C-alpha cells in the first residue's frame, strides 16, 4: 500500500509549508525581514514499464509506459527578495536601504555578517553599533562632542558640532552586495552569513554598481504580506486535509482486503 507513504510525504510537505508560513507571520513586524517561501518537487518515479520497451520484432515500442510517482519533497525554502516599505522614524541612526544591499557587521569573534536591519545605535565609546551592540564593519566612531549626525544617501557620515557651521566627515557607511542573495545563510537576529552559494561579498559605495541608497531616519519594514500568507495558510491546511483523506481511503481499502477472510 504505497499510497499510505505517498500521502504521508504530502502531509509532511504541507506541514513544512505551515511552519514556514507561521515563521513569516511571526516576523510580520520584524524590521527588514523578508518572507521565506517553501518550494516542492516530486520524488523519483517507480518504473513498472519503461516507455520505449520493444514489444515486437517489427520494432514497435511501448508508447507511454507505466511510471508511478512516490510523493513529494521540499526542494528549497528560499528568501523572497523584496523591498519592505519605508517607515519614517526620525531616528538619527535609523538607516534603511532603498534597493539592493546589506550593511556589514563585525561580530565579537571577528566574523563579519550582513544585515538589512538599520536600527543602529551609538555605543558608550561612540561606535555605530547594531541593536545587539555589534559594530558596523565600517568602523565609524562618532566624536563625543558632536551634537548631530547626518548620513547622506551614498553613506557619507558627517558630524556637526556646536561651535562650527560646517560639518566634519567622519567616515563612510558602505553597502555589500552578493551575486546570489538567496544563497546567504540566515543566522537569526536579522543577520546573514556568507556561504559558497552566495558568492563573495562585494563592498561598494551605496548607490553605485546596482546597490541601493541609504535613507537616514527611516526603517525598512518587514515585507511579509499577511493577506498572502493567510491565503497560503488556507491552501496548506486544505492540502494537508486532502492528503489525510488519501490515508483514510487507503486504510479503508486495506480493511476491505482483510475482511476477505
Amino acid at each position, binding site marked *: 500500500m504505497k499510497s499510505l507513504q505517498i500521502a504521508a510525504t504530502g502531509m509532511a510537505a504541507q506541514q513544512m509549508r505551515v511552519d514556514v508560513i507561521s515563521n513569516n507571520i511571526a516576523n510580520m513586524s520584524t524590521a527588514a525581514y523578508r518572507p521565506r517561501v517553501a518550494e516542492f518537487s516530486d520524488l523519483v518515479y517507480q518504473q513498472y514499464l519503461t516507455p520505449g520497451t520493444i514489444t515486437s520484432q517489427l520494432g514497435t515500442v511501448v508508447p507511454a509506459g507505466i*511510471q508511478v510517482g512516490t510523493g513529494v519533497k521540499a526542494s528549497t525554502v528560499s528568501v523572497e527578495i523584496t523591498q519592505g516599505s519605508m517607515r519614517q522614524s526620525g531616528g538619527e541612526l535609523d538607516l534603511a536601504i532603498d534597493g539592493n544591499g546589506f550593511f556589514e557587521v563585525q561580530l565579537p569573534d571577528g566574523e563579519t555578517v550582513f544585515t538589512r536591519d538599520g536600527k543602529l545605535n551609538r555605543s558608550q565609546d561612540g561606535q555605530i553599533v547594531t541593536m545587539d551592540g555589534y559594530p558596523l564593519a565600517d568602523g565609524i566612531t562618532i566624536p563625543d562632542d558632536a551634537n548631530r549626525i547626518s548620513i547622506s544617501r551614498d553613506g557619507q557620515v558627517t558630524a556637526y558640532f556646536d561651535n562650527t557651521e560646517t560639518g566634519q566627515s567622519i567616515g563612510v557607511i558602505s553597502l555589500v552586495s552578493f551575486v546570489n542573495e538567496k544563497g546567504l545563510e540566515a543566522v537569526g537576529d536579522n543577520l546573514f552569513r556568507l556561504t559558497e552559494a552566495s558568492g563573495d561579498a562585494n563592498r561598494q559605495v551605496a548607490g553605485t554598481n546596482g546597490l541601493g541608497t541609504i535613507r537616514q531616519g527611516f526603517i525598512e519594514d518587514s515585507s511579509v504580506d499577511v493577506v498572502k500568507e493567510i491565503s497560503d495558510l488556507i491552501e496548506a491546511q*486544505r492540502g494537508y486535509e486532502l492528503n489525510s483523506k488519501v490515508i483514510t481511503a487507503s486504510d479503508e481499502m486495506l480493511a476491505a*482486503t482483510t475482511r476477505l477472510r
Partner: protein
Amino acid sequence: MSNSIYATLSRQDGLLKELQVVANNIANTNTTGYKTDRAIFAEYLVSTGDQTPSLSMGALAGHTFDLTQGTVKFTGGQFDLAIQGEGFFALQTPAGERLTRAGAFQLSATGELITPDGANVLDSGNTPIQIPPEAASISIAGDGSISADGELLGQIGVFRANGQLQRDTDTRFTAEGGTEAIENANVLQGAVEQSNVSPVLEMARMIKVQRAYEAGQNVLEQEHQRSTQYISTVGNR
C-alpha cells in the same frame, strides 16, 4: 481455480496502482510546475485452452500526464519565470539535459542562472546563462529575452520535446527524441506556474477507486462463498 477470481485480482492490482497515482497527485498539489499523472487501463486476453473462450483481464497498460497549463501565480521574484502555453525550460543536469516547467530560478555564486539544486538553465542556443553580478535590474521579456540595465544579454530557451516525454524526479522530464527551440514562446517574469492538479477531480477519482476496489472485494467474497457451497454440496453427495 475460478477464472473470475483471476480477472478480479488483475483489476484489484490495477486499482491499487491507480490509488498510488492519485496519492502522488494529491501529494503534489502545491509542487511548482507539476503535471497531473493519469493511469490508463486496457483489456488483455488470456488463453484458457483450446475448447474454451479466452479470458478477458484488465490491467494497468500505460501512463500519461496531463500537460495543460497550471495556474500562474505572481510572486514578484526577479528570476521566477512561468511559460504561458506550450514549451519547457531546458536544464543542464549531471544526468543530461532535462526539461521542466518549474521556473523558480536563482543565481549561482558566479552569476549563472540555476535551479535551487544547482542545474544550469539553458538559453535558446543550449548554453548556460550568465548574468552580470553588478546589474541593478534584470528584465525578462515575453519572448524570453534577458536584459540587464537595458542591455540585451541573451534569450531564455523555451523548447518543445520531440517524441515521448518521460518523467524524471524534481518535476523534470526527459525528451526521448531531443528538443527544438520554440520561436514565439511566451515567458512571464515574476510568476511561477503552479501544479495543475485539480483536488476535486482527484478526490472524485479516489472515491471511484475505493468503491471499485470494495466492489471487487465483494466479487471475491461471493466467489469464495460460491465455491465453498459448491464443495460442500458436491462433497455431501
